[in-house]
Each structure stands twice: as structure tokens, then as C-alpha cells.
């Protein structure tokens, strides 16, 4: 074996204390990095699985595909798998059912396997043969005589407009948690189809999984072209992409890379990994530094007999390699177990908030990546000491001059001298002299404190801010109905008739815009900066300004009530109420200052305003419509909608709203048809009302078509989320803490080992046992306060910055921040370092004076 390698191996074996210290630091670092990758991969996997669960496992969708072209799609080399849905049928139910028909969508076996509908199965099974159907839950609710396994004698009608009916029978094999608006007068059902048996002229929807997912945005239009699908009015083929799933796989539509959150999350992961590697490299570097300093005499001997600088550097690098193999391998197991524990606890705390648990996912690729990152971290850490050692002059190294603890200039410490006498001054000077040795561990413990309590401060401030926002919210219970179509009137009527509520608002909203000229700005708004100050919100082109608007649909009675309060009357057609106010100081930090408004536009009752659905350049539709201003308000009615800065609310009656948005492109339909129902309820009643609203919605809609929340539930969820996130942060901070304590232990042992002679000398000149204890106690104390003195001011700066950004006062912060936890941490650090110091100094206290004085390592 090469002598340098042999030497490094021997050193690693013989210097157990420093080797263990390095191995602990490497173990924690690689465990941390491994856990970080497990977290990231589990999160990624969770997101992908969630997307597949709610949206299906497909990459692209081709609409209106003639059945006789399915073979061409299936045989395309770029297509991995194809699923088919369509051949829709209407089955007329026997007499006696509440609604007269089943609206059946047929799906092939691949579709049932890959798509999300199977996840909505409440009971039974999915159809496996033609003639089998699963029906919506409202069918069973409204027709309790039927059950799973029953066969329905039906008459099957063809597609839309077909009058022909054929007698048939359908077997109910399951119940689905889906619904359809009562306007259709039927129940939603899903059946089974064999694509090969479809009539050639029927049109179906085809879902594709691509061989090369990255090519989907170019390959699918080519397939559409190849099978002869026509383009729409915008020049696009009738295809759609599973953009959310594709984004998680790193595939983006041209131009949408920066709009996606996934690259930002990936960048965040890279930054987190990079920062962790840098921090751990710094921490481990300290451990290697101590080890190298311990060996400096031997390295000097090696140099003096001819070892070159590279060979000396290699001793540190080899040591790094030798000492990192076992910890890195072990960290794969520990990292997985740590992640499993932390993520399981996190899931326990958040599963009710998210509705699902996060499964721990750890692949060999992630293990390899973690091992590589850990090894790179170790090499980075060893590089500094290696370079340092290779530069030392041999004779200085042989003498150990380079790293012997020495005080170049003794400082006076009057306070310590006054209270603890001469020994107090000695203790302070000793700790000061060993400052470099303790530098890394002190920084690690400070970082640990900053990490844990910095995050805690951020959550505290965020909690205060959220609580303040919640207090300003007029409504206690919020319901979102999102069926993608007009909401069933019966459902809304039932929700409006809710007992025990003090106030209710129902509204729908859609984004739109108005093009105005500079002269349309009010004088007050102009004085406050006008359109030109609204960069990013208002677009200027050729002297015209595109002002964002929100079209709000209100129930007729509520709309009339607002008009009455404004002393106005509805206009016969296209009547609109405009809220003509804008924030005077949108950049103000203070909430009250931010709420101050001025008149926005020169608008008057009776004026006609021309609006467009194209509120942004990437909106596909360009429908334009006009409204007549029935009333101009100075503030938004309290309906639970808080428009963004510079957004002009245009309130219309609900019927008028629907009449307008039905002309909008389908792109935003899923949002535009949403209805928002808000309740103001007596204190303590919000969860009860929320439960009742859940029951009513559940009777009409599939569970994915509505969402409810209440103040109490939100507060509880915030608490859970904060607790869960703090648990992860504290777990990671604890890892830093272990490294910090381990390096403190190593540094203290090393420092005291070097100073045996010094203490023996004190004893030889008459310092007694009590004096030595006092000296060591003082040193331990001065050492233990150091990380607190470094970390506390930084923590205060972080807290102050958080408060300043969120506009939270110091009193509010101190009232909510768990100061006791900080005090407990400080006491713990003081106790642990002092305990280590006193235990480590036992040998010094027990030394035979003459033996220690004779101990000359040079």
C-alpha cells in the first residue's frame, strides 16, 4: 500500500477521538443530505401521485377523434399507450325513477386503469364488460329501491339529436362520487366500451401516454395532423395537455417554463442542497482542521524527510475518504429512518389538512445522489485543511508552532478580574486564545439556534398576520362550488336558507379588462401616481391603458339591496354597479394606510363601459361586452371578495353575469362558473354551520365539486401546519445541534489536552484544586455563552426584520413568540457545554504535576 495511504489509515485508526468526531459530523451531514433528498423525492412523488389521482395518468388528450382513426393513433411510434372515452349514450330509465335518464360516458379498459374516475368509486367495482355501469351517488339517494347488482331495463338513445331508441339492459356494478347539474334531468353514469367495436363514424376522446414525454408538445399536434383533425378558430388542433403532471416531469409548453412553480421548487431544492453542503462542509472542515492540527508535528516530520505538498495534502484527503465511507453508507439507512420518522409524524399532523398522507419514497438513484453529494461535501471540507497543511513550513510543523495556542496580546478583563480575581482574567484570555479552535463549533451552535428560532419567529409573525387578516374577514364560513358549470338553483336555495346565520353572500367572479385613456383617471388618482405608478398591474399601449376588472355576479335580491343602499335603481339592460376606488398607498406597510382609498376613474351613473374578456395577452378569447353604470360605489360591498390593487370591480346581477361569461372562451370556464357562498355566523357556531353546509353540498355534488372552510377550521389547520413544519425544522436543527455538540466535545478535549502542561504549571505554583475548578468553570462558562452571544443578536435581527415586513408590533410578537423555548435552549446549551468542560477536565485535575510538566510532545 502507498505509504501516504497507509499513514492516513493508521492515523484514522489511532486517533480515535478525532476520527469519531469527523465520522459523527460526516454521518450527520450525509444523513441530513439524504433526508433532504428523501423529503424532495417523497414530495415530488406525492405531487405526481396526487396529480395522477385527481387528474389521471395521461400526457395529452385528443378530442373529436373519429373511431376509424384510432388505429392510426395507437400505431404511432411516439405513443406508448392510448385510452378512449366517449360514445356517449342516454339511457331512458324505467318508470318510477326520480329523474328519467342515465347520461352514460363509456370508457375502455385502459381508461379505467389510468384515469381518476375509479378513485371516486364509493362502493362496488368499475365496469369490466359492455352493459355494466357505475352510477352517480344521487341516483341511489333519489331512488333508494335500487342497489348494486340490480339490472335496469332501459331504452338506449343515440347521441345528441338522435330519436332512435333501442331496448337494452344495464347492470349497476358500483356507485360513483360524482354529480351533474339537475338541469340535465338525469344521472351521470360510466360504462364500458371496446374501442374496436365502435361504429366508424362515432367520435371519441383519446388520452395518450407518450413514449418520450419530453416531445409531447411537438408530437401530439403532428399526430392530430396525421389523423386529419381540423384546427379550431385559433389555429390549434383539438388537443389538451396534462400540463400539471408534465411539469412535475420537467416538461413545459413553449414559453411556460418560468410560469410554472416546479422549476422554482427545483431551484429551491438546489439552493437548499447547496446551502446545506456549504454549511456542513464548513462544520466538517472544523473537525478536519482539529485532526490536522493534532497531526501537524507528524506532518512536519513527513515534510522534513521529503514528503511534497501534494502528498501532505493527500494525507488529509485520504483521511477524509477513509472516514467518510462508513458514515455515508450508514447515513443511507439513518437518512431513510429519519425521513420515515419525520415524514410520518408530519403526515399525522397534516393528513387532515391535506386529506392525504405523504408516503416516504426513497429510490436507489436518490441514495446514490445523496452519497455523491455527501462525498463532495466531505472533499470540500477536507480541501481547506489539506491546502493549509501542504503550505506549512516543515520546521514550523515539527515544532508545532503554527497551531500552538498562544496569546499575542493579553486583554484586560476588569469585570472578571473584579469578581473572579486573577483566575477570571486567565480564563478569559485562555478562551480568547483558543477562539480559532472553537470557531466552527460555536458557529454551528449559533446556526442551530438561528435556524430553529428564526423559523419559529417567521411562523409566529405569519400566525399573527393571518389572525389579523382573519379578524378583518367579515365572514366565518366560506363555501366554493366548482362544478365547471352553472350551479344547481336548488342547491343554492338550500344554502341560502341556512338557519342560524347572521349574514350571507353569494357571488361568482370572472376576470376581464377595460381599455381606457389617460383622461379617464380621476384627479385624486392622478395625484397619487395614476396609471403610470401601477406598473405590472396596468398595461399601456399606444396611449391606452388596460385596466384589470373583476366581473362579479350577485344574486338579484342582493344586487338590488346594494343598489337601494346607493340610492340608485337597476337599468333595464346590462346594468352594472362599479366600485370606483383604488388604494392610495398600495406600497404602504401599515394595514390602515394601505386601506386608504381615492376615487379611481372619472365614472358616472348612466355611462356605458366597454369591457373585454382578454384581461391578459395569453387569454385565448377576445369577447367584448358593454355594461351601463347603474351606480358608482366608493367601497366594495361586504361579500367576502377583496379585489387586487388597481382592479375595478364591475358588479352585475347573476343572470347577466352568466349571459356574459357563456361567451367567454372555455379556457377559464372552470373558474368563471364557480360560486362562492359566505356566511357570517354567531361566535362558536362556524363549524356547526360548516358541517351543515357540507351535508347540503354533499347531497347535490360530488365531493371534489365543492369545498368548505371556517375560521375555526382554518385556525386549527394553521396550527397543525405550523406545528408540523416546526417539527421538521426542529428535527433538522437537532441534527445541526448534534454536530455542534460533537465538535464542541472534540475541540474541548483537544484544547485541554494541549494545555495539560499549563494547568500542571498552575498547580506547581500553588493553585489548589478549588482554584483549578474555578478556572475551568470560568472557562466553560465563557465558552458556553459564546454561541448565545453570536446567535442571539442575529436572531433578534431576523425577528425584527420579520416583524417589520409583516407589520407586526414588537409587543404582539413577544406576546405570541415562545420565549420560554428560547430560554430553555439557552439553558440547555450552557448546561451541556459546561458539563462537557467539567468532564473533559477531570484528567487535568487528576494529573500528576511532574508527569504533566515533563510531557513534551515536540
Amino acid at each position, binding site marked *: 500500500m*502507498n*505509504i*501516504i495511504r*497507509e*499513514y492516513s489509515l*493508521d*492515523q484514522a*485508526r*489511532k486517533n480515535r477521538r478525532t476520527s469519531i468526531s469527523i465520522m459523527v459530523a460526516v454521518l450527520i451531514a450525509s444523513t441530513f443530505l439524504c433526508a433532504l433528498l428523501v423529503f424532495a423525492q417523497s414530495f415530488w412523488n406525492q405531487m405526481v401521485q396526487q396529480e395522477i389521482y385527481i387528474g389521471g395518468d395521461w400526457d395529452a388528450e385528443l378530442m373529436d377523434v373519429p373511431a376509424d382513426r384510432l388505429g392510426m393513433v395507437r400505431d404511432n411510434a411516439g405513443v406508448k399507450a392510448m385510452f378512449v372515452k366517449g360514445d356517449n349514450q342516454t339511457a331512458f330509465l324505467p318508470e318510477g325513477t326520480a329523474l328519467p335518464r342515465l347520461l352514460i360516458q363509456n370508457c375502455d379498459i385502459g381508461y379505467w386503469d389510468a384515469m381518476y374516475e375509479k378513485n371516486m368509486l364509493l362502493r362496488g367495482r368499475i365496469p369490466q364488460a359492455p352493459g355494466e355501469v357505475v352510477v352517480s351517488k344521487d341516483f341511489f339517494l333519489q331512488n333508494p329501491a335500487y342497489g348494486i347488482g340490480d339490472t335496469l331495463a332501459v331504452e338506449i338513445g343515440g347521441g345528441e339529436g338522435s330519436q332512435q331508441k333501442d331496448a337494452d339492459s344495464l347492470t349497476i356494478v358500483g356507485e360513483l362520487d360524482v354529480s351533474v347539474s339537475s338541469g340535465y334531468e338525469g344521472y351521470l353514469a360510466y360504462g364500458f366500451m371496446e374501442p374496436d367495436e365502435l361504429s366508424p363514424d362515432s367520435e371519441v376522446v383519446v388520452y395518450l401516454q407518450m413514449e418520450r414525454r419530453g416531445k409531447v408538445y411537438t408530437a401530439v399536434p403532428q399526430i392530430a395532423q396525421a389523423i386529419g383533425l381540423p384546427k379550431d378558430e385559433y389555429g390549434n388542433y383539438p388537443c389538451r395537455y396534462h400540463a400539471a403532471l408534465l411539469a412535475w416531469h420537467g416538461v413545459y409548453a413553449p414559453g411556460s417554463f418560468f410560469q410554472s412553480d416546479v422549476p422554482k421548487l427545483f431551484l429551491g431544492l438546489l439552493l437548499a442542497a447547496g446551502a446545506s453542503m456549504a454549511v456542513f462542509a464548513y462544520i466538517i472542515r472544523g473537525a478536519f482542521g482539529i485532526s490536522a492540527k493534532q497531526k501537524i*508535528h*507528524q506532518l*512536519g*516530520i*513527513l*515534510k*522534513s*524527510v*521529503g*514528503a*511534497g*505538498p*501534494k*502528498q501532505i495534502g493527500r494525507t488529509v484527503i485520504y483521511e477524509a475518504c477513509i472516514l467518510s465511507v462508513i458514515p455515508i453508507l450508514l447515513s443511507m439507512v439513518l437518512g431513510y429512518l429519519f425521513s420515515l420518522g419525520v415524514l410520518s409524524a408530519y403526515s399525522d399532523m397534516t393528513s387532515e389538512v391535506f386529506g392525504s398522507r405523504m408516503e416516504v419514497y426513497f429510490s436507489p438513484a436518490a441514495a446514490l445522489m445523496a452519497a455523491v453529494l455527501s462525498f463532495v461535501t466531505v472533499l470540500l471540507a477536507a480541501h481547506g485543511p489539506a491546502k493549509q497543511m*501542504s*503550505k506549512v*513550513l*516543515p*520546521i*514550523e510543523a*515539527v515544532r508545532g508552532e503554527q497551531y500552538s495556542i498562544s496569546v499575542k496580546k493579553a486583554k484586560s478583563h476588569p469585570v472578571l478580574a473584579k469578581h473572579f480575581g486573577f483566575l477570571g482574567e486567565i480564563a478569559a484570555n485562555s478562551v480568547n486564545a483558543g477562539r480559532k479552535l472553537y470557531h466552527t463549533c460555536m458557529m454551528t451552535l449559533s446556526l442551530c439556534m438561528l435556524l430553529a428560532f428564526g423559523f419559529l419567529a417567521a411562523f409566529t409573525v405569519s400566525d399573527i398576520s393571518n389572525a389579523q387578516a382573519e379578524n378583518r374577514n367579515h365572514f366565518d364560513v366560506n363555501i366554493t362550488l366548482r362544478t365547471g358549470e352553472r350551479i344547481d338553483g336548488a342547491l343554492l336555495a338550500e344554502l341560502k336558507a341556512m338557519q342560524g346565520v347572521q349574514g350571507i353572500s353569494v357571488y361568482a367572479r370572472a376576470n376581464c379588462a377595460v381599455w381606457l385613456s389617460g383622461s379617464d383617471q380621476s384627479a385624486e388618482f392622478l395625484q397619487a401616481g395614476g396609471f403610470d405608478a401601477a406598473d405590472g398591474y396596468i398595461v399601456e399601449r399606444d396611449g391606452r391603458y388596460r385596466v384589470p376588472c373583476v366581473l362579479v355576479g350577485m344574486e338579484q335580491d342582493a344586487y338590488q339591496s346594494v343598489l337601494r343602499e346607493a340610492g340608485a335603481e337597476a337599468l333595464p339592460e346590462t346594468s352594472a354597479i362599479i366600485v370606483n376606488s383604488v388604494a392610495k398607498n398600495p406600497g404602504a406597510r401599515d394595514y390602515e394606510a394601505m386601506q386608504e382609498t381615492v376615487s379611481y376613474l372619472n365614472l358616472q351613473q348612466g355611462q356605458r363601459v366597454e369591457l373585454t374578456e382578454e384581461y391578459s395577452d395569453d387569454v385565448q378569447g377576445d369577447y367584448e361586452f358593454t355594461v351601463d353604470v347603474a351606480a358608482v360605489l366608493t367601497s366594495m360591498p361586504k361579500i367576502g371578495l377583496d379585489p387586487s390593487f388597481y382592479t375595478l370591480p364591475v358588479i352585475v346581477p347573476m343572470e347577466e353575469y352568466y349571459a356574459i361569461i357563456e361567451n367567454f372562451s372555455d379556457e377559464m370556464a372552470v373558474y368563471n362558473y364557480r360560486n362562492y357562498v359566505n356566511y357570517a355566523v354567531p361566535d362558536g357556531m362556524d363549524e356547526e354551520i360548516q358541517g351543515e353546509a357540507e351535508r347540503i353540498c354533499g347531497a347535490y355534488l360530488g365531493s371534489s365539486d365543492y369545498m368548505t372552510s371556517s375560521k375555526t377550521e382554518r385556525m386549527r389547520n394553521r396550527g397543525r401546519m405550523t406545528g408540523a413544519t416546526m417539527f421538521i425544522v426542529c428535527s433538522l436543527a437537532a441534527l445541526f445541534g448534534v454536530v455542534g455538540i460533537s465538535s464542541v466535545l472534540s475541540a474541548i478535549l483537544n484544547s485541554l489536552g494541549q494545555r495539560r502542561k499549563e494547568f500542571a504549571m498552575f498547580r506547581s505554583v500553588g493553585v489548589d484544586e478549588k482554584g483549578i475548578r474555578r478556572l475551568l468553570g470560568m472557562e466553560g462558562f465563557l465558552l458556553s455563552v459564546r454561541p448565545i452571544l453570536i446567535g442571539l443578536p442575529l436572531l433578534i435581527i431576523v425577528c425584527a426584520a420579520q416583524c417589520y415586513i409583516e407589520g407586526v408590533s414588537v409587543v404582539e410578537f413577544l406576546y405570541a413568540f415562545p420565549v420560554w423555548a428560547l430560554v430553555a435552549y439557552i439553558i440547555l446549551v450552557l448546561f451541556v457545554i459546561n458539563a462537557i468542560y467539567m468532564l473533559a477536565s477531570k484528567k487535568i485535575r487528576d494529573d500528576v504535576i511532574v508527569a504533566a510538566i515533563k510531557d*513534551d510532545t*515536540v
Partner: protein
Amino acid sequence: MDILRTEGLTRQYGVGQAIVTALDHVDLQVERGQFVAIIGASGSGKSTLLHLLGGVDRPDGGKIFVEDVDIATFGEERLAQYRRRKVGLIYQFYNLIPTLSVKKNICLPMLLDNKEPSKERFDDIVRTLGLGDRLEHLPGQLSGGQQQRAAIGRALIYQPAILLADEPTGNLDRKNTEEIISLLKLSNRQYKQTILLVTHDENVALEADRIIKIEDGKIISDKAVRP
């Protein structure tokens, strides 16, 4: 013929007002095969001179010619090669690597060059040093005299032209001192090596061919003891 020559060799330590001049423009010539003793009081600069000649320290001024090549201009790698192959350094406190066996400590300069000494050469040195039965021991298992012999073995293994010994007997009793000096003289005679020996023991110095006395970083006397 000079094997070693210094011109205006200067070494200072410290900064500002605390500067100490350890060597002050020292000019020195040593012929090949000479056995030179350097004596002087503690702090006179004798060890500093030896360390500069051995390439383990860097001068602040002047030149050091070894076989007519100025080693003061060498880069780190070349200087390491010089220490490995051209000089052998012997210290007062042996300075063996405690985790390597005696055999490996002796062979260290060659092992650093990824070479093994010839068996004859190694056996010859070990026999001369009387360490035949201690080769697999660790330095900590040897007496002081044995450790110093191992250090001499290490200095001899590459057959360097120059041996530099810094108080090699300073930590030994009379019997071991005599044995070590005999070994150095034997090496000087047998292998024609040039030896510079730093000592404060006048009896030891009298064993040399030439005695140089240093005081305050300057050579104050240079006498030939025997031709």
C-alpha cells in the same frame, strides 16, 4: 570541492519591533566528505542554519548552493524532492512517525518516492544500526537510543550526499551518545557523506574534522580540528 556553500544567508523571525535576526548574512563553504560540527550558545542560530541547509525552513535573504544549485530558489515540490534524496535530517527528539513500524520509518524517504530500498543496502544499514530485531516494532516500543538509530537509518536510506544532525545526542545518555557519534563517523567514512552536526557538547564537537562557532547569527570562528 565544495558540496555546500551559503552566501549572505539571513533568517529573521517575528514582525515589527519584535524582529529577531537568527542568522545574519552567513557565508559558509563545506567540502564534500567533511565532518563539520557547529557549536554555539542556545539561540545563537546554529539550528536555524541547519534547517535552512536541510530545506525545512526558508531564508529571508542569501543563497544556499548544494552541488552548485541554489536550493533557496526551489519551489515546494522540488524542495521536497531535495529533502528526500539529497539530505538526511536527524533531530534531537528523533521525530519518527509513531504509527509506522521501525522498518517503514527507516524506508520512509524512499516510500514517499514509491520506491523500495535494495535488500543489500537495507540489510547493511540495519546491521550497522543494530536494529535487526526491532524492525516490526513501533517507535514507542524502542529506547531513546534505538529511536535515534532508526532516525539515522531514515537519514541514510537514500544515501544522501549530506547528513544534517541537530543535537542528535542531546536527549541520550553517555553510552548512547558515543554509539551515535560512532555511527555518524562510520557513515562519514564508509559512505563518504558530508556531515554537519549541531551540538553544544564540546566533546562531541571534537570528534569532527572542523568546528564552526556561531554567536548572534554570525560565524565567529571556523577551525579545522584535523586535516
